[in-house]
């Protein structure tokens, strides 16, 4: 990659929004990675088998859903506390 790239304004804008999209995508990927680790530790049986069991799969699904519920719950809780303080 050469050191001095000179793009016109239209291209610069296009590249900026491209990079923003890619960053959003990377953030999404990082969240999925984090949930996988969290739920792997909770759901996977001690010895890996030749396929995911039904129990493991439904545990993973529930784990992600409940984590997101918990996250929303914490936000609501914080909002309530803030409302109490200011009210």
């Amino acid at each position, binding site marked *: *990659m050469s050191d001095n*790239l000179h*793009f*016109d304004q239209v*291209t610069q804008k*296009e*590249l900026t929004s*491209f*990079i923003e999209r*890619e960053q959003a*995508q*990377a953030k*999404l*990927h*990082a*969240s*999925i*990675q984090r*949930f*996988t*680790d969290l*739920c*792997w*530790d909770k*759901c*996977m049986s*001690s*010895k*890996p*088998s*030749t*396929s*995911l069991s039904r129990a*493991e*799969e439904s545990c*993973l*699904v529930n784990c*992600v*859903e409940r984590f*997101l519920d918990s996250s929303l719950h914490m936000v609501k809780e914080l909002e309530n506390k803030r409302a109490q303080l200011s009210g």
Partner: protein
Amino acid sequence: MAAQKEAVMRNVRNQIALANAQVLMNSSTERCFTKCVPSPSSSLSSYEQACLSKCMDRYMDAFNVVSRTYMSRISRDRLENQQAAAFH
């Protein structure tokens, strides 16, 4: 110009893909090592190797299940928000 733009985009995509793959590799290696090699000896046994191979496949399965669940949750929440916004 267009070729340079394409090159920048390709570069960004490649770097992100590489970073994602590295995190995935590190994370699955740590978790499968914990599962499959609980007490390390002077060499990896064939049993441990087989366990690591299976474990890696299951880690990818788990990643895909989590990914599918998260994506459908996001689109479900978005839909509900839209409906709530339209209702008010």
